[in-house]
Each structure stands twice: as C-alpha cells, then as structure tokens.
C-alpha cells in the first residue's frame, strides 16, 4: 500500500471549518489565538506565562514557537493543543473554541484532532512499537485488525516498518522519536504538536526528525506546531514565532531573534535572546 494512502479518518470531525471556505472564499486559519493570557500561582508568586498573545496559523503550515526558557512557548503549545486553557482570551483550533470545553471534552477533542510528540518520546516500555503506535486508536471504535493496519501504515510513513515488534529499549533515540511521531499521526489528526522533538537527539537524528516533520507537512498536508530551541529548525519551518517573557515578538524584534538564531545555527554562536528586546509588542 502506498504511503500516500494514509487517510485515517476514524472520527466524525467536529470542526472542519478550517477546510471549509468562508463565504468570501478565504480559508480561515486552523489556529486562531486572540489576546490570550495565561497566569497561574506558583507558591506565593503569580506567574504570567503569556500576556495577551494573538496569532493565527493556517492549515498546512509548519511553524515553530521559539524563545528562551520561561518565554511562554510551552504554555502556548499547551493552549494550542488543548492541554491547558487560557486565563483570558480565546483559542480556536479547527473551529472549536477550546476555552469552552471541560477537561474530559478536551481529552476527547485532543484524541480526535491533535497528535502530540514529546522531547523524551514517552513510549510505553512494555508495548512494542506497533502497540505504542496503535495506543491512541484504542480510543476509537475501530476493530483490532484495523487498528493494527493503521499502526503499520503510520510506522511505514516514519520508515520503521521493519521494527514493528521492537520494544522501546531496543530502539535508538531517533527510532523512538519516529515511533512517537507515528503515534502522533496514526489518528490522522488536523494538528501535530511537537514539544522539543529534537531536544534529546544528536545532530544527525535531529535533522532526520525535522526532515520527517517537513515531509508530513509537504506530503500529507499536516499542520505542525513545534516548540524548539533548535536553531536548525528555522531551515525547515514555514514560520517561526518568537516569544520572550510571555510576549510575542513582532516586527524588528522578531527579525533580530531570527537572525540571532540563524547565526547560532550557522556559526555555532551560543545565543540567548537576552532580556525582552525592544519592539516586543504588548498588544493593545
């Protein structure tokens, strides 16, 4: 079966408005974030992880959230993937306003619409590659044979169709991350969210994973949001959003951040974005 035949639609889609064209013919963005803030208490401190961030991401884009530790990029990723909910503002993904959903509804929504990839792979050690990939399909009504078939296809997409019986401990880091990617795509989600997917890999494997993600975007039209520190990512993504201290950098500040990262990628410059640069826009 050709790899391109991966069209896995086990669910009735709740919000396909991102694929539907609006009345004026323009295609609405897959992800719409409007004036989103996220703050919480850590001990006695109030932490403002995100401050009135607005952005939109079109379907089929491969974007990166970049920034130093504490910049709010992981918080933003959690909001986009429906893991967390905003304190203020609105997050709309695939036509669904996530702030309106309960914890259990969010879980169901994630199962249907989001594929998640983590830095440390987080495979289930007692399951082999095939069973790990098929894990999210347990949440569907598919028969076992169909779950296995789809998991095999997903493993073929990531180039691990020869390793289906292998347990995580017998796979290299790069292979484990590929299994994790297969697990993320097996339900054919609208959105793939990757949290530092190259953070625990050597340079060669990191490049391979980034290449694979780009292939998922190019060949299968997947929308991919990636949180990363990895300057190499800029070569693969369509767009990078730079964050610092909970603010989205735009204009000159974002350009400077891009250049600093490109320099780091090209010249080995150890770059930190430093304090919130001038130009970090605090939305009105």
């Amino acid at each position, binding site marked *: 079966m050709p790899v391109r035949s991966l069209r896995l639609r086990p669910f009735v889609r709740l919000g396909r408005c991102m694929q539907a064209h609006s009345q004026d013919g323009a295609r609405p963005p897959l992800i719409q974030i409007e004036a989103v803030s996220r703050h919480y208490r850590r001990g006695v401190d109030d932490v403002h992880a995100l401050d009135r961030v607005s952005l939109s991401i079109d379907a089929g884009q491969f974007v990166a959230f970049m920034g130093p530790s504490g910049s709010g990029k992981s918080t933003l990723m959690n909001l986009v993937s429906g*893991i*967390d909910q905003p304190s203020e503002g609105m997050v709309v993904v695939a036509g669904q306003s996530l702030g309106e959903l309960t914890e259990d509804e969010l879980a169901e929504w994630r*199962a249907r619409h989001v594929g998640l990839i*983590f830095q440390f792979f987080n495979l289930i050690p007692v399951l082999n590659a095939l069973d790990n990939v098929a894990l999210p399909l347990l949440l569907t009504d598919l028969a076992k044979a169909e779950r296995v078939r789809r998991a095999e296809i997903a493993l073929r997409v990531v180039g691990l169709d020869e390793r289906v019986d292998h347990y995580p401990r017998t796979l290299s880091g790069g292979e484990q991350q590929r299994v994790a990617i297969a697990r993320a795509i097996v339900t054919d989600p609208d959105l793939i969210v990757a949290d530092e997917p190259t953070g625990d890999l050597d340079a060669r494997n990191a490049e391979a994973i980034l290449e694979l993600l780009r292939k998922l975007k190019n060949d299968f039209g997947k929308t991919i949001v990636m949180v990363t520190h990895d300057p190499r990512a800029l070569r693969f993504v369509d767009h990078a959003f730079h964050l610092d201290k909970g603010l989205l950098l735009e204009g000159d500040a974002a350009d400077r951040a891009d250049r600093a990262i490109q320099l780091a990628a090209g010249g080995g410059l150890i770059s930190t974005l430093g304090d919130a640069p001038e130009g970090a826009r605090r939305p009105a």
Partner: protein
Amino acid sequence: MKYGYLVWKNLWRSKLRTAMTGGAIMLAVVLVCLLLTMPAGMDAMLNDFANNTRLTVHNKAGIVYSMPYSFTRKVRQVDGVAAAVAWVWFGGAFEEDGRVTFPNFAVEAEHIGAVFPDYPIAPEQLADFQRYRDGAIVGRQVLQKYGWKLGQRVTLKSTVWPVDLDFRLVGVIENDRAPHFWFNREYLDQALKEKGSNGLGIAGTIWVRASDPRQVNTIMRKVDEMSRNSEAETASETERSFFANFFGSLQGLVTIILIVTGLVSLCIVFIAANTASMGVRERAGEIAVMKAIGFPRRVIFTTLLAEASLLSIVAGVAGVFLAVGLTGALQALAGWNDMLGPLGNFIVTPFVIVQGLFLSLFVGMLAGVVPSFGAARKPVVESLHEVF
C-alpha cells in the same frame, strides 16, 4: 476488553514485584480460607459427635449436680423415648498419673447399647459387658494411648468416690469420637455399699434416645416438666447442644480467629495499596502522556484499578486452590492417621471459596482505588508539569 492487553502488559512491567505482591495476597487468601473453615469445621465436628435422636438430661443447676437415679425410670416411660441410660462421673485416674486423663462413667450396662446404637461396639462385647459386673468398655483412642488389650485388667482410682476399682476390659468403641471408659454402675454401687454407704442412688446425666427425631423437642419439654418443683429440676438439651455448651470456650477461639482474619486482610490491603501506589508513581510520565493524547480520566482510572484488581483476583484464585489443596491433604492425612481425625472436618466449602475470592477482589479494589483516583483526577497540564 480492548484495554485488557494494556492492563495485562502493565501488570507484568515489574515481574518480581508483581510476583511478590501476588504471592502475599495469595498466602493471605490461603490463611483466611483456612481460618474461615474453622467455625464450619467445628460445626461439622459437633455434627459428627452428635446424633439427632439423642438428648441429654442433667440437673438444671449444672452438669456437676446430680439427679435422683429413680428419675431415669420415669424418663423411660415418657412417650417417644426408645431408651435411656444414666451416667455417673467416676473421675478415675489411671495408675500413677493421679489425674483424670480420660472421661470414665458408671453406666447401666443393659441400656447403654440401646441408647448408643451408632457407636460401633461388637454385640458379643456388649454381651460380655452385661455379663461381667467388673467389665469395662473403652474408646479406641484410650485403648491405644495406654497400650491396653482386651481381657486385660485395669485399676482406676476415683477422685470423686472413696473407692479404687479393678476392671476387666471386655469391649472397645471403634471410633475416635468417644474416648470414654464405661463400666457397670452396679459394680460401683456394690463397692460403695461395702464401704458402708447407701450405694449409688444418683444419676449425673441421663442420655435418652428418641424413637423419632421429630419427638426430641416434645420429650425434652415433658422431661423437664416432670422434674418441675422437685429437688432436682432438670434441663434437657440435644446432644449437639450439649457438646456445643461443653466446648463453649471454642466460641471465643472462633471470635479470635475471625478478628485475626480481619487483621490479616487489612495488612494485605496496605501491602497491595503500597504496590499500586509505587506502580502509579513510577509511571507518572506515561500516565501524563496518555492523558495528553486523549485518554479520558475514567479510562485511566479504570485501567489502573483493573491492574490492581486483576492481580488480586489471580492471586486470590491461586490462594483458594492452594487452600483447597491443603485441606484436601489434611483430610487424606486424617484418614491415614487417626490422631489427625478432627482435621478432616476442616474443608473449604463453596461459601468459603466465595468469601476468599471476594476478599481478594476487595483487596484489589481497595488497594487500587486511591492511587488510581489520584492519578486520574489530576489535570493533564499538572501531570505534565510534574514529570517533564
């Protein structure tokens, strides 16, 4: 069922820990099953000892008090009474022991066989018992304990009456539930008269056999009515009730056994709960990821609880099988060695099996519910923050 595979694989994540926890639960179930057989076992022993047509009459003030011997004749005349025999405690000690090591009674030789037809005594031995005034019939256990032979002479020194009597062993009760020593009451009566007393004018207990089990209650009521307002009012009870009262202290033992059973169960709940908590803690990262990819809280809770319950149930089934095997072995041993006879009564009944299985299920559910609930309840973002 589609999560069954996941539950099973997770259960064997740490084989040693699973085996040890399962082993602890299994042994607890064995212990509890064995303990639970004891009340039923004692009940069975009583049933074994007691006959449903036999009853006993004794002084209402207690079995250490006597009744007039003449009352025995009156009892025989009550409707429905097939036979009655008076017993008197002799309290005889054998040789230098100086203490009573087996129950010995003066009985009416001509009536004893009719009241205890279920006791296996050879007819010719019963005939000899009636023929020889100094004849004695003894239980097999006592015979074996002292290495006596039939025809041998045995002297008992009474701790109650001022006489020592020399007996000729003429018969044996061929079972292990009657370790008695019976002799002819006329022999004691004559010995006492020779000592200058008025002879044996009393009965300690009167054993009665009803012709029909349905008449036992009527006979008891009539007998007690006959003695009302006399010097020795009587209290009648069935043989089973008599033995139950006689062994009344065993009820306390049964209570202790049941308390121990409860404590054992509680200990195992704590052990299993600790194991379940460790398992959940170790897998916090995986659980967080499962929640993140969309596993709802009820599925997380159910699969974790199912793991703890499955382990307990498997261990419980093994424990029940082991308990059945052990009691079966005890029964076989009891058949092989008479001294172990009563152990044959301790059998794991279907009810005990159900109790053992419920215990294991209870242990699993109780042990698993707290860590499972804790893991499932936590919001996914908190779970991810804690582990990554």
